[in-house]
Each structure stands twice: as C-alpha cells, then as structure tokens.
C-alpha cells in the first residue's frame, strides 16, 4: 500500500458505542470488539469495519454521520473518549487516524449532546437547528443578472483574510458539543463576523445579527460563559475573538437598527 507504514501492526480494540433505536427510545452504551484494524485507517473506516462485522452477524449497523471524509463538510460528529472529534486538536473525526490509538485500547464513542441536537439514531444527531440559524440571517443579497466581474468590489487583503478565517467554519457543531452550556455562539459568531467584515454583507448587517441571535435562543442553545472549550475543540480554529465581535455587532445593531420589535 503506497504511503502506509510497513511496520504498523494491526490493532484489536474494544469499542463502547452509544446505541439508540430512534429519537424517543432509551439509548445505552454497547460494547463491541474490532480486530485487525490498520493504523492507517481513519476513525470512520474503523467504524465501517465494525459495521461490516455487524452486518455479517445479522445485526443492525451503527448509524453515524459522514459525507466528505476529507475534513470539509462537518458531518462526522463523534464524541470520542470524552472529546469532540477525539483527543487530537484541530481535526475532524474523518481526519483522525487509528495510529493515534494503541492496540488493546478501549474507545468510547457518543453522539453530540445538546437539547437543540436531538439524537436521530445511534451516533447520528439532528443539526437542523444550525440550518435554521443560517436561514434566519446567514446570507447576503445578490443582484440577479449576468455574472459580475471578479474583483468588482475591491476588498483589502487583510479584511479578506480575516473574513476567510471566519468563513472556514464547517458547521460541525463541535463547539456546541464540547460546551458545558451547549452554546452555539462560536458557530453564530463565525458567520456574523465573516459577513460583517465584507462589503457584500453590509446590507443585512444589523438584521442579520438580530435574527440569527433570536433564532439561536429559540433553538434552545445556552448562553456563552467564555469558558473556551469551543475554540479549543473547533477543528478549524475559529477563535473566541469572533464571539466578542458578535457581541459588539449585536449591541450596535440593537442600539441603532430601525427594528422596533
């Protein structure tokens, strides 16, 4: 196998996996053994092996969310050994490799926990609350018609870089999952600062932050107490500074918007 480590020994692991039939069922941790796991596998590939075993035995495979498997879609929401996306900093679960574990390890795998993220089944959770927050204001107006010229609106490089940094949020929800208060403020702040920095975002600048925060509260996320677990666990390194920007944007909008309601 190209690029693989010839000395890597296959591992045997004990998995403690949260199993839950559906949204209303009681769930519980179930133990499984997986054998001959290559250290070159990603964590999700290791779960694929488990599911193949389960299918062969005529059992229900473990449901878990995944899509791109290359760290860009934010689907792979697993709470591994007490940490969002596992103990490695700056990684999604799909980018976590089995070489970070040792032969004989016991690995506990749980879904994101937050009232606003109900468990659909096993490890798969419903994160549509994030979609509704984005729908409430995480967009910009565009004129219809022909394709606009590139660089029609000049944006200084420094601003573009900062906006891009905030735009790298992949909406994975690790911030909510790791926060003691299940607060979504890092996620909301990333979108609010990204669009507040760019001229294209200025049309809806005030209504955006008002509506997104209102929707965030309505979904039942908690209030930030500046603990910082979110930024520590965020796979793309969205910083706490964005939450300060969110609070400033929110206060400024509340004080000056034309919205009396």
């Amino acid at each position: 196998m190209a690029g693989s480590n010839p000395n890597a020994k296959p591992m045997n692991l004990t998995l403690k996996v949260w199993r839950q039939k559906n949204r209303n069922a009681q769930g519980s941790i179930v133990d499984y053994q997986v054998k001959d796991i290559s250290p070159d596998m990603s964590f999700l590939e290791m779960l694929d092996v488990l599911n193949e075993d389960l299918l062969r035995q005529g059992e229900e495979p473990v449901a878990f969310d995944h899509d791109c498997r290359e760290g860009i879609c934010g689907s792979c929401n697993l709470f591994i050994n007490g940490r969002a996306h596992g103990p490695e900093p700056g990684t999604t679960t799909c980018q976590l490799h089995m070489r970070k574990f040792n032969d004989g390890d016991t690995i506990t795998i749980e879904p994101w926990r937050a009232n606003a993220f109900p468990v659909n089944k096993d490890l798969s959770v419903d994160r549509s609350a994030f979609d509704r927050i984005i729908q409430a204001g995480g967009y910009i107006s565009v004129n219809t018609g022909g394709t606009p010229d590139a660089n029609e609106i000049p944006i200084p490089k420094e601003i573009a870089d900062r906006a891009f940094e905030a735009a790298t949020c992949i909406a994975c929800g690790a911030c909510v999952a790791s926060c003691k208060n299940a607060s979504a403020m890092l996620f909301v702040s990333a979108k609010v600062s990204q669009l507040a920095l760019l001229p294209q975002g200025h049309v809806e600048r005030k209504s955006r932050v008002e509506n997104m925060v209102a929707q965030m509260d309505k979904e039942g996320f908690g209030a930030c107490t500046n603990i910082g677990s979110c930024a520590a666990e965020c796979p793309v390194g969205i910083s706490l500074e964005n939450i300060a920007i969110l609070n400033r944007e929110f206060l400024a909008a509340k004080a000056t918007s034309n919205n009396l309601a």
Partner: protein
Amino acid sequence: MSWITKTFSSSIGRKIIMAVTGLFLCSFLVVHLVGNLQLFKADNGVAFNAYSEFMGHNPLIRTLEIVLVLGFGFHIYEGLALAAKNRAARGNQGYVVDHIEQNSSWHSRSMALLGSIVLFFLIVHLYNFFGSLRFTDVPRDANGNEDAYALVLAAFKNPFYVVLYVIGQVALLYHLLHGFSSAFQTLGLTHRKYTPAIKFIGYGFSIIVCAAFAAMPIYFFFFK
C-alpha cells in the same frame, strides 16, 4: 419598549447584564477594601468607626447603596437563572465519558458554584455587620461613633467565622480570576493588543483584593 426588553432578555443581552453588574461589583470591592484597610490601623478602631459612621449616614452613600443592592440583585438573579438555562440546554443525557478538563479550566466552568459560595458568605457577612449596625443599637466609642470595630473584633474571635470568611474570599478569588477578563470579552472588548493586559490586571486585581480581605479575619483572630 419591546426592543429594549428583547435585547436584555436575549442570551447576549443577559450576558451583558452579568458583565456590567460584575464589573460594577468589582468597583464596589475596591471602595469596600480601601475603607476596611483602616482596620489595620493601630488606633483601636477610632478611624474605622468614624469611616463606618460616615458610610452609614451619608445621603450619597445611602443612595449608592440602593444601586449596589440592585447590582447584586441583577447579578445574582441573572447568574443563577442563566446557569439553570445552560444546564437545561445541555439536556438530560450527559456524556458517559467527558474530558472537559482537557479543554477548559475548572474555575471558568464553576462560576455558579463559586458565586453561590460567595452569596452564602455575603448573607452571613451582612448578618454579622450590616444587620447589627443598621437594625440594632450598637454601643458607641469615645467619639460617639457606633463601635463597629468592636463588632469586628468579636466576630473574628469566632473560628467558624474566620474559616467561613477565608473560604468566601477563596471562592471570590476564583470567581474573579475568570470573571474579570470574561466581562470584557462579553462586552466585546477583546483585542490582541489589550486582552493580555486585561488578563494580567484581572489576575492582579483578584489576588490583591481577595488576599487583603482574607487577611482581615486572620489578622484579628491571631493578633488582636
């Protein structure tokens, strides 16, 4: 008025209330500490009693007292209400294995617990001094001022109070080690140039203020 009530009932608005009242309470701590430092004066409480008489009867101070009570009231109510809301947001089913200690500090996660210890201390503290001075007839010293110094002397001969007061200050210390800089972040006052200084001042403030307050019962218990 609805946009105003909406602002201050939103999660961010309520946090703003916490931050503003929290920093206001920090300013109160400074005033309270500076006045109380007169307890260390070797004049058997003459200056302290005069100061305490002034604080008890000056109309401006009595008006500010109302602001202080409101500040405490909002801070405590919102603090406990937000803590309950945040616990509910987490949901009933917690993580079976949770290593949150690997990504955050204990005291930043324990603001409600630390605040509650401070609150318990505060109630006993008010009962010890404020209650006696305001609501009972306290003997007067040679200058005709209420002898608050004698109350302090008596209270801090009781080891139970000494221990409780020191515990109260340790709780306040940890509350402020997180709370001071946290309040600036809440108010949006975060900047890579100034935040390190705010953190440093916050640590210094918390340690100096709490150590000085804790020194009072210890000093009276052992040396008076």
